[in-house]
């Protein structure tokens, strides 16, 4: 995605800025509603946004230690430039990590091998020599690779570290469990103990559904790297992310007040039980916003101001202070019969998020249609989304939406190209994931 590069550069620029003032080092919790004024006396729908932004880390501050397992696919298809670039990227990781970080390297083909068991990154040469010895051959025991990777993380498991598996694969899992659902289950069980899996799909041979699902369920990142030359760059982004984790083990409870009914959370997993919504994140990164958009059904209300809509409670573990902290917030809403007031008080930023998420949902829909061979229908859906995005871009004065609109238009064209479908599908899944998880790259 073009915008991701821009985002990254702005971010790293910000990180490099000498900070003269250190803000209170707590997570920023923003609660907003798309429409702060709603029509009185009507059944209607609105979106509640819960935004979480990681605080800034001062450059003199000790960053969070990490516990990383790099899981490399060394199946036969990786032969040649791919494996060389993967080795290069893994070596880069060895350089980026500090002596206090823990690294393990696992390779898999027919079978799994823990090439470098979990160890502190003190003897870089030894680790690099091991990595350099990787040779490609055989098939793809992906499940076992991730499994053993997680197992290595558990050896030095510490909630005060960033515990992450970085999986690189270019092929279809063909030894061991291989369905997206199975890997998704593994991902969500790892997430529960605080392990995220970042999945990097290399080339056009991997199963993007599986890789995206694994990343999504475990709250890791996902990247589609078509050309192995970009691997090192992606590794760099990933490690910047990992090293900027400021909070972990984030749980959010949204308690809707009477008259407000939670329907669903856009693009993310959440448990909705009665009027309560439970969701979680494995981590928050410095200066990055992650958000939840809750679709809410609203009962008819009389004209009234400052109605309590929902109470939000958030728990997290602050990586700088190593303490568990709690934040709470409230969503309030006003009811009126004045349509002008309603139209004039749309929360622009929140609305942009909603439009982006809905467009991503449409993109998923179109992808399913395309999978079933309904190219025309899929194109229609994407074109409509594109129109919608452009229209909203103007209304909300949001150029980013126009950018998405252009992309969707491109996608609508590309999905008809049978030869490019493999690449297009991977790109679309990658884009959807980025939007839904507010990934930094």
């Amino acid at each position: 995605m073009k915008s991701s590069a821009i985002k990254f550069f702005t971010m790293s620029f910000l990180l490099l800025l000498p900070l003269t003032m250190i803000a209170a080092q707590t997570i920023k919790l923003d609660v907003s509603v798309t429409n702060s004024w709603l029509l009185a006396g009507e059944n209607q729908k609105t979106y509640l946004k819960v935004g979480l932004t990681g605080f800034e880390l001062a450059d003199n501050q000790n960053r969070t230690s990490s516990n990383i397992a790099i899981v490399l696919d060394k199946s036969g298809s990786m032969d040649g430039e791919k494996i060389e670039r993967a080795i290069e990227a893994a070596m880069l990781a060895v350089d980026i990590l500090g002596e206090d970080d823990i690294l393990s390297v696992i390779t898999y083909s027919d079978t799994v091998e823990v090439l470098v068991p979990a160890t502190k990154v003190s003897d870089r040469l030894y680790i690099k020599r091991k990595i350099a010895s990787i040779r490609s051959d055989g098939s793809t025991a992906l499940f076992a690779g991730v499994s053993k990777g997680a197992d290595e993380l558990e050896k030095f498991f510490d909630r005060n570290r960033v515990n992450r598996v970085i999986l690189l694969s270019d092929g279809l899992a063909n030894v061991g469990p291989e369905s997206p659902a199975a890997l998704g289950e593994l991902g969500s069980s790892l997430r529960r103990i605080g392990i995220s899996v970042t999945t990097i799909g290399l080339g056009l041979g991997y199963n993007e559904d599986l890789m995206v699902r694994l990343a999504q369920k475990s709250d890791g990142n996902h990247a589609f790297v078509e050309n192995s030359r970009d691997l090192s760059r992606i590794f760099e982004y990933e490690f910047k992310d990992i090293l900027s984790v400021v909070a972990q083990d984030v749980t959010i409870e949204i308690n809707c007040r009477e008259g407000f009914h939670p329907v669903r959370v856009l693009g993310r997993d959440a448990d909705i039980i009665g009027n309560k919504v439970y969701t979680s994140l494995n981590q928050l990164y410095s200066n990055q916003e992650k958000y939840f958009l809750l679709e809410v059904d609203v009962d008819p209300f009389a004209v009234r101001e400052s109605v309590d809509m929902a109470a939000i409670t958030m728990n997290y573990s602050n990586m700088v202070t190593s303490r568990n902290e709690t934040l709470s917030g409230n969503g309030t809403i006003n009811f009126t019969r004045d349509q002008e007031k309603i139209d004039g008080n749309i929360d622009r930023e929140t609305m942009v998020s909603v439009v982006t998420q809905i467009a991503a949902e449409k993109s998923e829909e179109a992808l399913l249609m395309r999978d079933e061979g309904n190219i025309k229908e899929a194109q229609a859906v994407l074109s409509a989304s594109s129109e919608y995005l452009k229209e909203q871009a103007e209304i909300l004065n949001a150029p980013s939406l126009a950018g998405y609109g252009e992309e969707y238009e491109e996608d609508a064209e590309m999905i008809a190209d049978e030869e490019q479908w493999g690449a297009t599908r991977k790109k679309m899944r990658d884009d959807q994931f980025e939007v839904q998880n507010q990934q930094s790259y």
Partner: protein
Amino acid sequence: MKKRLLLVFLILIFMPVTVITVMGIYTYRNSLNKERESLKEAAEEILIVNDRLLQNRIRLIEDELEGLSLDPQLTTDEIRPAMNRERLVKQAFIIDGEDQFIYPPIKGDTSSKEKEFLAEAESIELVSNLRARISPVEKQLNQSQWYTWFMGDGLNFINFSEKDNMIYGYLVERYSLVSQLINVLPQDRDDSFRIQLTDARGGILYQWGNYSHGETEKALLEHSLGEPLGSWRLFYFHNEKTGTPIKTTLGNIYIIPVIVLLSLIIFFLAYYFYRENTREMETARKQVTFVNQVSHELKTPLTNIRLYSELLQNKLVDPKERNFLDIIVRESNRLGRMINNVLTFSRGERGELKSQNKKTDINLLISEILEKFGPLLKENSMKIIYRENPLPAVVTDKDMIEQILNNIIGNAVKYGSAGKYLGIETEVKKDVLIIYIDDRGPGIPEPERELIFKPFYRIDNSLTQNNSGTGIGLSLAKTLAEETGSLLKIEKSPVGACFSLAIPLEGEKK
């Protein structure tokens, strides 16, 4: 003759070689089987060890689940977040004494995941199934139990226990369980084997060992895991190309060279004997060939000697001088017979013997022969007993019969002169005319009676030592007898040797 020897030679080689080879192969197979058995045993042990590793992990998982605070005293809102943090727990549940779910609450609000679970529980009659499985032993031991059932793409695992008529249970996150289980298994990269863990559907869950076996290759061993993983299996594939990792039986490696070596030894031994045997024969044959050529050259001068000697016999009157001449005639006859024998034998060897039948008066023939032998017999003081019977004329080759009789009588004089006796009798029996010739010499020992008809065979004893001979006389007689359709054999007799020649009356029927 030569063919038979070759046959014997071949048998001599192939019998022992075959026996050794068969035994070798048997031993090899046997040791292979033994090796396979011991390999299987070792593989079984390995699989059992891994099964035990998995079982130990299952025990740990049971302990981990038991340690969770699934307490009916707690509220749903307290249980839920706690359970959501457990990686092994897909869904925890509590069933009360009335078989109602307390958790997840059947009455209160539930998540979509919980609703799904409750619906599935109802459809598989989970509660009654669990109740039926509770065994008093485990209840007393306060141990949890496993319940598994098929749903979707595989087995589902429930771990549960009963306390005060309440059931506490966990639907286990399947792939979290798989992941934890395979993490206890080795990651051996040995080339000599491949072990696979498969689920109930035969799908591979995990494998180790670097031997990449063929798709159709049968596993050396298959091992079913203990409960609750009863439908899972471990397969052991052995790489034949590498040595066994457990035990190396060296025996097999040497068995083939041993067979080859033994076969070679036998071959050379047999070849040696064959060569020795044929060399002797070759030498004798070469001698005969030589003698044959010489004999041809001798024939003309000999005939001349005999002719002129006989001419001279009529002219000499001095008895002393006549006596000398008799000796010359006698020895010329003997020489003539010898030359004749050699030439006939050679013709026989070349397959040129052909009988020419004509009416023959046997009585006359015998008389003529005895007349020729007269001086020789007289010299050896052998008494001739010949009873002449009236005999029918036979149609046969007269010259051949004469040569046969010459040889037999010649032998009788040569070897049996000590008996001072030569008996000749004739007899007509059915359609044959039999001539018996016996002497009272030392005779022929029983074991050698058949051998004397073989060419170049001479009984090796003191008697023959002083006698010269070509060793072809009797053999030739036998050949000639066969050629004329007669039967020459040695008869049993109390003293000396007795030969009989049976000549068909009607001539040879061919």
